[in-house]
């Protein structure tokens, strides 16, 4: 007597048979038939033809049958919208049923039917259910609002359901509160700026109360919502932390991680000398360790998040190294993550243990894992200087095993160790050279060639070694070819007498026989250098190399901070900003860690900053973002590629509003002077004279530097162009938007008012270049709150072109670096009122979208 019997009716006429059974008079037979239908549906069979017959079974007092019919309806209503209407009546009736279970079921099911006609009928029952006396019905209705919003957002807003939902946050029942929060969060995701979850100390208090009493899932919703709040000061922050910490002992790992997120964020505001701060740090470690004893899937997500936490606050887990040791039957995705965290936690204190483990891993079965373990040894050497020697000897031991892929990996990492600690471990070169023949991977070959070239003077048979590679030059990968070319040139510069022939050979191979442009160009450059000025060649090729940095794999601090605010989410699993990948979600709504209490000093300052993040990005993004985008838009422009950007003229004052006077114009910066360029057109029938202009007080103190030069009267249909020089010494008043300018123009007829917005770039002064050191120091000094990030879309420029272009607009590139194919430009801008704005521009080759982070140090300018 199992349900598998429902699958057995596969003979012909099955649908017909079911139809007959559905219309049977016997209740029992009906129910069996509906069960068969559902069973077919679950395995993906199309039973939509039975729609009217199934719906006919809906009016029943048998709850199971009703539920089954509802299940069917949800699945098929969309394909049969007209038929679905038949069900509306029963739904509406069920919403009035004395049994709350049936009321809730009805409103819940109705929300799942994504048919417009049904949705219309849903509003009234839903409104009633949102105010139902039974909390079970209310909580179901709260979710229903989210469903309805997904189907028809406008309808939800028009019907005022959002306000009702907001009211439910103050409901007496914790489950209702939790569901209302969940529904609002989901709705807010599609409306990034709607400010639906208006969090204030009162609502926070309600959420914290509900947190203790609702289900585990509700706790997750509430905690995630809390994480969006920015406390006013460190005391509020501490009191929230105190009420959230008990969640760390919850059996549900998602609750734990959400609580960790809240604590990691709010901790930022606590002064570090506070006792509580230390207590909190200690409390965070055990729950994170516990997550690692859970199932592997949970471990994986936990490890990805721990990776972030370790980068942000290494002190939390610094004594817990052992829990990250790999068990041989961990799934590979867990092993690799553990390895990564082990390296991040490696320090002088625990390096011996770590190395012993890594060496153990290097003898495992899984090749990928072994390779990563060998690399990890190299990373340890680079990270912990005191351990370098030990690491090198471990690597040598591994090379002795002669396991092919181990040897190759080891050679690649030894190359990096040489770059970090030059002239220290060259004694091992002999051992490396013994394994030359076994190297078949390009990366390992290239690494070995680099070593031979770099230390040619210490290797007696360097020329023979390199020559042996040269034989199959054309079969090598580009990486190896380039490395070989450079290595032989180095060798030649070090031992010119014996190797002339060799260098000739490689240069001709590279320049004449290769069709790889990179290789050819490098070959030519060397050739010319060597033939014109060997001394210069020596200086160039054998120049001292910069040491490689310790942690090239660290996440950029700005991204790290954002990710910390997103602990537990998909973003944290992928280590990418949330805006980068989740489809159709929020616009650019960046979360930031609040300002640290210990930097801000007094609580009052903290409070000041607390409010800032909400305001800042919006006001900053609009004018500056637009402006910078415009600066790039000039892109293909032919006219004056080096000049400052001038936006096209727009109509500021239409003739309709000014008794026939039309004013259009723009702003420009020419030779250090800001100019307002106006075009006045007389569209009236009479002559206009006596023009004058005045500005209202504005954010940057712009004021006319002279009178408006309209000397001749302006006849009907006449147009005149005037340009008005501006100064920045006028009275200052903060405008909203910041770059708003209110203007009054007078003529013989009347006074007219209009407002216009000037591009911020106009205020960038020419002496905006900054010393690199100063830039660096200033950049570090910028409080997080004064930073903002946004993207410029669709811009096809490379970094140099962009830098030139921007320089034309007085945006000066101070430094440039390239990380993982991303070019980063660091730029400085000085505004006419002496404020510096620093910017970081990230561009990726082939990706037309740039990311700009802006920051300014002046605290007073946080609204900018």
């Amino acid at each position: 007597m199992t349900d598998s019997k429902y699958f057995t009716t596969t003979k012909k006429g099955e649908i017909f048979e079911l139809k007959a059974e559905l219309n049977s008079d016997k209740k029992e037979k009906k129910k069996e038939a509906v069960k068969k239908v559902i069973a077919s549906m679950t395995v993906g069979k199309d039973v939509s033809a039975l729609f009217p017959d199934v719906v006919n079974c809906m009016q029943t007092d048998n709850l199971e049958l009703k539920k089954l019919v509802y299940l069917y309806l949800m699945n098929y209503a969309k394909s049969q919208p007209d038929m679905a209407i038949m069900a509306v009546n029963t739904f509406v009736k069920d919403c009035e049923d004395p049994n709350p279970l049936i009321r809730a079921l009805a409103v819940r099911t109705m929300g799942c039917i994504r048919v417009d006609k049904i949705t219309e009928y849903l509003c009234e029952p839903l409104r009633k259910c949102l105010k139902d006396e039974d909390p079970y019905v209310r909580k179901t209705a709260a979710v229903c609002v989210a469903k309805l919003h997904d189907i028809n957002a406008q309808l939800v807003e028009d019907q005022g359901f959002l306000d009702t939902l907001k009211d439910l946050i103050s409901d007496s029942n914790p489950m209702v509160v939790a569901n209302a929060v969940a529904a609002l969060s989901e709705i807010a995701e599609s409306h990034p700026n709607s400010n639906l979850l208006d969090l204030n100390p009162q609502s926070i208090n309600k959420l914290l109360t509900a947190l203790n009493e609702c289900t585990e899932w509700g706790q997750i919703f509430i905690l995630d919502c809390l994480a969006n709040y920015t406390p006013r000061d460190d005391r509020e922050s501490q009191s929230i932390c105190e009420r959230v910490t008990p969640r760390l002992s919850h059996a549900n790992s998602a609750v734990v991680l959400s609580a960790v997120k809240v604590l990691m964020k709010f901790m930022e505001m606590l002064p570090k000398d506070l006792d509580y701060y230390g207590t909190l740090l200690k409390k965070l470690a055990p729950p994170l360790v516990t997550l690692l004893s859970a199932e592997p899937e949970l471990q994986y997500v936990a490890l990805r998040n721990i990776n972030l936490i370790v980068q942000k606050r290494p002190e939390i887990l610094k004594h817990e190294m052992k829990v990250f040791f790999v068990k041989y039957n961990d799934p590979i995705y867990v092993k690799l993550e553990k390895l990564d965290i082990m390296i991040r936690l490696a320090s002088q204190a625990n390096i011996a243990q770590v190395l012993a483990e890594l060496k153990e891993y290097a003898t495992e079965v899984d090749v990928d894992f072994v390779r990563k373990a060998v690399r990890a040894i190299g990373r340890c050497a680079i990270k912990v200087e005191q351990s370098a020697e030990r690491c090198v000897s471990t690597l040598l031991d591994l090379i002795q095993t002669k396991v092919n892929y181990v040897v190759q990996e080891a050679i690649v990492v030894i190359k990096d160790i040489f770059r970090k600690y030059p002239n220290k471990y060259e004694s091992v070169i002999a051992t490396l050279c013994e394994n030359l023949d076994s190297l078949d991977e390009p990366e390992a070959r290239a690494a070995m060639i680099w070593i031979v070239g770099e230390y040619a003077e210490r290797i007696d048979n360097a020329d023979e070694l390199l020559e042996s590679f040269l034989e199959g030059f054309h079969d090598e990968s580009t990486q190896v070819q380039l490395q070989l070319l450079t290595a032989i040139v180095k060798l030649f510069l070090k031992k010119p007498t014996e190797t002339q022939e060799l260098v000739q050979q490689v240069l001709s191979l590279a320049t004449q026989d290769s069709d790889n442009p990179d290789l050819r160009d490098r070959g030519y450059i060397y050739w010319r250098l060597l033939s014109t000025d060997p001394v210069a060649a020596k200086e160039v090729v054998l120049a001292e190399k910069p040491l490689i940095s310790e942690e090239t794999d660290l996440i950029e601090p700005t991204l790290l901070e954002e990710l910390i605010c997103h602990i537990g989410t998909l973003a944290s699993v992928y280590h990418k900003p949330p805006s980068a990948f989740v489809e159709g979600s929020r616009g650019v709504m960046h979360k930031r860690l609040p300002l640290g209490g210990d930097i801000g000093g007094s609580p009052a300052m903290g409070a000041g900053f607390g409010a800032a993040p909400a305001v800042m990005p919006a006001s900053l993004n609009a004018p500056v973002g637009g402006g910078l985008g415009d600066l790039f838009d000039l892109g293909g422009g032919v006219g004056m590629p080096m000049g400052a950007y001038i936006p096209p003229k727009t109509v500021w004052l239409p003739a309709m509003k000014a008794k026939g006077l039309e004013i259009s114009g723009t702003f420009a910066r020419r030779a250090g002077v800001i100019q307002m360029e106006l075009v006045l057109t007389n569209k009236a029938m009479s002559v206009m004279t006596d023009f004058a202009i005045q500005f209202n007080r504005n954010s940057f103190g712009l004021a006319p530097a002279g009178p408006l030069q309209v000397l001749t009267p302006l006849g009907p249909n006449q147009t005149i162009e005037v340009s008005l020089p501006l100064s920045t010494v006028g009275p200052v008043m903060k405008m909203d938007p910041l770059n708003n300018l209110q203007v009054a123009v007078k003529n013989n007829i009347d006074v007219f008012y209009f407002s216009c917005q000037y591009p911020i770039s106009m205020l960038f002064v020419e002496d905006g270049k900054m010393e690199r050191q100063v830039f660096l120091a200033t950049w570090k000094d910028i409080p997080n709150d004064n930073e903002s990030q946004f993207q410029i879309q669709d811009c096809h420029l490379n970094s140099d072109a962009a830098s030139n272009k921007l320089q034309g607009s007085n945006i000066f590139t101070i430094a440039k670096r390239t990380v993982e194919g991303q070019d980063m430009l660091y730029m400085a801008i000085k505004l006419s009122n002496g404020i510096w704005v620093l910017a970081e521009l990230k561009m990726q080759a082939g990706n037309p979208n740039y990311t700009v982070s802006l920051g300014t140090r002046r605290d007073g300018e946080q609204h900018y």
Partner: protein
Amino acid sequence: MIHSLFLVNSSGDIFLEKHWKSVVSRSVCDYFFEAQERASEPENVPPVIPTPHHYLISVLRHRIYFVAVIQSEVPPLFVIEFLHRVVDTFQDYFGVCTEAAIKDNVVVVYELLEEMLDNGFPLATESNILKELIKPPTILRTVVNTITGSTNVGEQLPTGQLSVVPWRRTGVKYTNNEAYFDVVEEIDAIIDKSGSTITAEIQGVIDACVKLTGMPDLTLSFMNPRLLDDVSFHPCVRFKRWEAERILSFIPPDGNFRLLSYHVSSQNLHPLRSASLVAIPVYVKHNITFREGSSQGRFELTLGPKQTMGKGVEAVLVSSQLPRGVLNTNLNPTQGTYTFDPVTKLLSWDVGKINPQKLPSLKGSMSLQAGASKPDENPTINIQFKIQQSALSGLKVNRLDMYGEKYKPFKGIKYMTKAGKFQVRT
């Protein structure tokens, strides 16, 4: 929130799908199948897989992949925890969680899934509540339902759903009132080849089976609560009381539930007395060697009890993944039986009880591929065992008291130690 769920069996067929919002085409699972093909072992399929429009979050349980489809930003742990809850519920309802059991009960499964999530939001996941809404299938009930025409769906609103104790239903009645608590500790350890402990930690749980009438309020106290500094509680436990007095005070759910789980590591509490907290109950003497140029390898393994607090070590099972180069083994166990699978190279030895007077050993030779070089990897030995009536950490319950009801319940507490991931490197 959670959009859809697909259940995929080990041969890669989708045998059940459920959608909580609009229908997502099965073809989304193709990305999962791709990842599955790339993975060397079934358990190596990554738990989070991105696709162009969705994310797939999966868990593998009982050889079934539970693949959840999500579209917007949802905490992955939330999804994984929910999937676990689905597995637990199926197991609870059908005794086992297999493809056959799910197919046999497909309508109940569907009803359950519908009840557990609403629009992707968890609705009722507590087994107590679910059981009131949808009665688990039993042979008797099926027969009765067929005769009387009654249903297995509850007509009443589950009472626990909204009370402050959502985990307990009201009106529970038993003739025999009993409360059993099992303290079960699993030891995870890595022992290196010289026999010294690299890591050792204990994952402990207290599982309860409480069948008490009415609304009993229980308190449980320990002789040595200081051991428990890293704990996760069932929601019923009053956290404040624990913080203040180190006493577990709770109104229990009805039936089986996990009261708490805890973690004891060698470094957590007493950095100075490190290893003493986690005693290693067994030791292994091993000698697995391969000689260069010889097609024979030597294999010797001896087990012995170490710190077992006088209790016997039983149900011992040794397994090891031997290197790929090993063709076959010729070994003699002094007790128990051993098997070697020449295809998977898995050696397993069912030892049984360890007799401290006559230590079990497994000795003999391994034959290698002729002419092949000596294997690079060192096999790791995995050991399972049980020790009855003892909790390795030394955790002891002091007393269990009941308030709020008048009858005298029968109380029982049992201790057990098991090996979790207990690995010896060679």
